[in-house]
């Protein structure tokens, strides 16, 4: 529970500073500090258990189906990181209170900071790799907000976007890698993963998995060649840089490697990838850092270089190197956080970060200068400061390397070279800023910052010194447990002493120190360092070009697919469907099944011929729209004959009725549309469309043939058996509709209702000029409502209604039911409109179609809801047999009430659709 609280306090408490800011900046900062201090206290409370080597675990189930659970662990490594995150976080909160100006929205800053803190804590305390990944992405998002905090600055926005793109992209790679890892191990739980070293390293997927995970770690930890986002992230407020680039964000990648070190390390791939990347980054970034004129730019490259150093140490895969890596994580966090804060103070009090203008500040801020000097000395690796200790361990390990064979000298030489550069840029940070002449027209006269702004720096600097001078009494226990959980086994023997005698590593340190001093002064006084201007990093150019290329590509693809032409969309759609459909044919081969086809009879042959010819005629005469419509009608009738022929009376009835209604509807629409279609497609296009159409037809026919010649395996036995005993009806199709799959039907009448209302909303009340002449310039029929039709329709109406009621009532047992009865009623009513006109009919038939739709859907819904009162699920049906006079035995099922709702909805929707369309352009009747 403690673990969950540690994470939840910053995450949930993130809202507090935003609220507290109403009572002033101090209240906001106080709230943030409180939300950080509580989990810190909780963490410290666990110190004895962790230092004794214990691991605290806690877990709750979340999404076990994908192996994602809320499991947390607090071991040495997690403890170390949580301590850094919360401790330095607290100092940053204090520091930011003084750093942010009156104009900056303080509440928002603390909200973002706490969100980020919670996400970081989540990473280091997760015991599940997927959960870790969730927090990983959260840090990418919240760091985006933090880096872009000054959103009115273009470079802040660009820096934030770049950081998000690089680390977010790396996050995707990491996701893939973790999924592979989970696939190899069969679990995402860390304890299981950490026990599976042989399984993982023996897997053929090891290399791709490792590469993907390393991509995630390298992007996050700003390793070459993904390093360039970090210098651009310097446009963030300095407290953000101090936090993100010392103890947290960039350390997440390093943390991940440390976490997975027991199972991933030791292979050749790991060695070359990790230590190779680390080595290049270490030397390259240290070199670049010397030439940065911007204080934060220098620190940014120095950070990249130190991260490279830690990577290199983990890559070496020796136990002592891993210990040195963990040690350097601690040391770097302390001295880099204090250096960033010092840089922020200098910027804050002098108005500039440019080392070409910041000179001789010693006179103005000696106290800050002293603090910066200690931290810089630690960064340079000067004895008696903590950076020296881990650097000595690094030099030792560099010399112990065996994998490189005759090239053994490369790593030590590169390490010394990077040491030289590090000393040079550290010296520059101090000498250029605090000495080296006088300030060059600074915006403000520099002076010491407010007292409390220096306190966080002082605390960190004191830590640097304490660790540097008395390592065994300060950092040793923490280092032991943290390194212990990285190695996952016994710790190597090591001695945290300052003096090891006259050794080769000491010689390297001496070379680095003296070389660095030489290099710096040579650059400053021989080569006029201030005049050297570096070109922008190629990484950034590459990134920008890649981004532009991607945007261009997406424009081309989108423009090509979405050019606004429905014809193209449909052609593409058909093509894709064809390809998708052809794939299984191609894969499985086309062959007919074992089932022997049934005999053909003469009647079927005639119907087939009629269907094929009428369909073909529709296409041939599609420009003569009325003619084409007639052919479609014939085709539809033949389709209903297919249903009759193959034992589907319900379908046949439905098809015929829908056919009638559809044709009326099409006629009504045709009246309002051009009567002919112009010839406008080119021959090539028609050939292309014909090709697509023939291919689609062949595909469908082939599919049907392949299925029909195979034996059937159906689930319908259940419905046939249960229809009478379970649903109380012998018409299985109807029982399925209103009972077994009643919920589907319910959804479908709602779709119908929406369609009808949509039509009404779209064209209801549309008034257009009614053409007086038909396209052949003949007047429309003078007698629009012939007497015989009128008389016949009126006699037919009651008969038709009676039939429809009969169909509705018997539908549960015989062909019929709500859909069919509804359509019959609709046809009967529509006939009145056709025969006698809209005005005449509406004067006598006052039906509010919209309301009727509502009633129908409501009845269906209430029938469903009613079953809740009997403790049964939605739409459970009940039935009983009633004996009624005249009608005789009548089985009544509650499903029939549902069917009544279906009936009403179908009647009303059909009427609404037709009447709405029919009213357009109708003249007022005389």
């Amino acid at each position, binding site marked *: 529970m403690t673990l969950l609280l540690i994470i939840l306090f910053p995450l949930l408490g993130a809202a507090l500073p935003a609220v507290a800011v109403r009572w002033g900046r101090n209240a906001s900062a106080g709230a943030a500090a409180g939300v950080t201090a509580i989990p810190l206290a909780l963490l410290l409370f666990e110190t004895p258990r962790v230092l004794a080597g214990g691991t605290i675990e806690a877990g709750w189930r979340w999404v076990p189906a994908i192996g994602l659970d809320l499991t947390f662990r607090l071991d040495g490594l997690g403890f170390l990181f949580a301590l850094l995150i919360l401790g330095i976080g607290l100092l940053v909160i204090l520091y930011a209170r003084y750093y942010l100006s009156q104009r900056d929205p303080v509440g928002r800053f603390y909200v973002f900071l706490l969100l980020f803190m919670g996400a970081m804590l989540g990473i280091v305390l997760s015991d599940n790799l997927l959960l870790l990944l969730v927090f990983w992405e959260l840090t990418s998002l919240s760091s985006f907000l933090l880096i872009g905090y000054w959103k009115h600055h273009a470079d802040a926005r660009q820096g934030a976007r770049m950081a998000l793109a690089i680390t977010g992209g790396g996050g995707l790679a990491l996701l893939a890698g973790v999924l592979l890892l989970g696939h190899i191990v069969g679990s995402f739980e860390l304890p299981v993963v950490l026990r599976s070293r042989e399984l993982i390293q023996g897997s053929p997927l090891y290399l791709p998995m490792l590469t993907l995970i390393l991509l995630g770690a390298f992007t996050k930890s700003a390793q070459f060649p993904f390093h360039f986002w970090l210098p651009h992230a310097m446009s963030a407020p300095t407290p953000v840089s101090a936090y993100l680039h010392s103890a947290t964000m960039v350390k997440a990648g390093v943390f991940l490697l440390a976490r997975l070190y027991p199972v991933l390390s030791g292979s050749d791939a790991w060695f070359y990838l990790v230590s190779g990347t680390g080595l290049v980054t270490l030397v390259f970034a240290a070199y670049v850092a010397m030439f940065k004129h911007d204080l934060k730019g220098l620190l940014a490259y120095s950070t990249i270089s130190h991260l490279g150093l830690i990577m290199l140490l983990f890559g070496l895969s020796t136990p002592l190197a891993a210990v040195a890596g963990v040690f350097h994580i601690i040391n770097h966090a302390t001295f880099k956080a204090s250096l960033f804060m010092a840089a922020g103070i200098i910027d804050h009090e002098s108005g500039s970060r440019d080392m070409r203008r910041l000179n001789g500040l010693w006179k103005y801020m000696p106290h800050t200068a002293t603090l910066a000097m200690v931290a810089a000395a630690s960064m340079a690796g000067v004895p008696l400061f903590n950076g020296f200790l881990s650097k000595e361990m690094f030099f030792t390990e560099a010399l112990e390397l065996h994998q490189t064979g005759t090239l053994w000298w490369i790593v030590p030489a590169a390490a010394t070279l990077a040491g030289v550069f590090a000393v040079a840029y550290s010296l520059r940070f101090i000498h250029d800023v605090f000495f080296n002449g006088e300030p060059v027209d600074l915006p403000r006269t520099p002076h010491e910052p407010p007292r409390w702004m220096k306190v966080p720096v002082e605390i960190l600097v004191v830590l640097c010194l304490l660790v540097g001078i008395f390592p065994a009494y300060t950092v040793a226990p923490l280092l032991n447990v943290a390194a212990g959980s990285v190695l996952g086994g016994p710790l190597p023997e090591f001695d945290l002493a300052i003096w090891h005698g006259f050794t080769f590593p000491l010689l390297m340190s001496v070379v680095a120190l003296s070389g660095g001093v030489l290099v710096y002064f040579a650059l400053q006084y021989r080569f006029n360092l201030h005049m050297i201007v570096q070109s922008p990093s190629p990484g950034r150019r590459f990134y920008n070009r890649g981004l532009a290329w991607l945007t261009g590509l997406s424009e081309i693809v989108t423009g090509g697919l979405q050019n606004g032409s429905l014809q193209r969309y449909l052609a593409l759609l058909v093509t894709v469907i064809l390809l998708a459909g052809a794939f299984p044919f191609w894969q499985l081969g086309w062959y007919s099944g074992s089932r022997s086809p049934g005999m053909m009879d003469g009647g079927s042959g005639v119907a087939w011929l009629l269907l094929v010819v009428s369909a073909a005629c529709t296409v041939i005469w599609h420009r003569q729209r009325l003619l084409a419509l007639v052919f479609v009608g014939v085709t539809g009738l033949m*389709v209903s004959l297919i249903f009759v022929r193959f034992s589907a009376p319900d379908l046949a009835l439905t098809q015929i009725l829908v056919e009638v209604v559809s044709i009326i509807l099409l006629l009504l629409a*045709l009246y309002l549309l051009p009567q002919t279609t112009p010839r406008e497609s080119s021959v090539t296009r028609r050939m292309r469309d014909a090709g697509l159409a023939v291919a689609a037809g062949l595909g469908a026919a082939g599919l049907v043939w392949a299925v029909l010649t195979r034996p059937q395996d159906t689930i319908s036995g259940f419905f046939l058996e249960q229809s009478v005993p379970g649903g109380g009806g012998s018409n299985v199709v109807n029982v399925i509709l209103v009972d077994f799959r009643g919920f589907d039907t319910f959804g479908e009448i709602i779709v119908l209702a929406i369609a009808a209302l949509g039509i009404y909303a*779209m064209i209801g009340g549309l008034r257009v000029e009614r053409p007086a002449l038909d396209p052949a310039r003949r007047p429309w029929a003078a007698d629009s409502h012939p007497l015989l039709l009128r008389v016949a329709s009126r006699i037919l109406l009651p008969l038709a209604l009676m039939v429809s009621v009969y169909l509705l009532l018997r539908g549960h047992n015989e062909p019929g039911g709500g859909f069919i009865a509804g359509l019959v009623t609709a046809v009967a009513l529509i006939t009145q409109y056709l025969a006698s006109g809209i005005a005449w009919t509406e004067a006598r038939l006052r039906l509010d179609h919209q309301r009727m739709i509502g009633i129908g859907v409501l009845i269906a819904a209430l029938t469903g809801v009613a079953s809740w009162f009997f403790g049964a699920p939605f739409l459970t049906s009940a039935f009983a047999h009633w004996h009624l006079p005249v009608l005789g035995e009548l089985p009544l099922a509650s499903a029939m009430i549902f069917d009544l709702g279906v009936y009403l909805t179908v009647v009303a929707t059909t009427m609404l659709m037709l009447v709405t369309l029919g009213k357009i352009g109708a003249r007022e009747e005389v």
Partner: protein
Amino acid sequence: MELLVASAIGVLVACGVYLLLRGRTFPVVLGLTLLSYGVNVFIFVMGRLQSGAPPIIKPGAAGYADPLPQALVLTAIVIGFGMTAFVLALAVKARFALGNDHVDGVERSGPERVP
């Protein structure tokens, strides 16, 4: 018999697809209608072809046609009608709002390019 059914469905689909790719709304609606005929029959015959065996429970019946595809197709027919009606309303509205009945809403002069 199976060959007849398969080829009939093939013809319906082919005619439907060809009309679907036309440039004016009315033929497209006709194509949609033909295509839905084809699809409905397709789903229906997935229950195989059975003569004289409607799925209505009667004592002594020799066998029943598969009721499930029938139930699916029944609603599909009605929904298909709703869709046709909606597309027609759209076509009518588009014609009066845009002044032409081209599916893209723009009447192009001269024969079109093949994209």
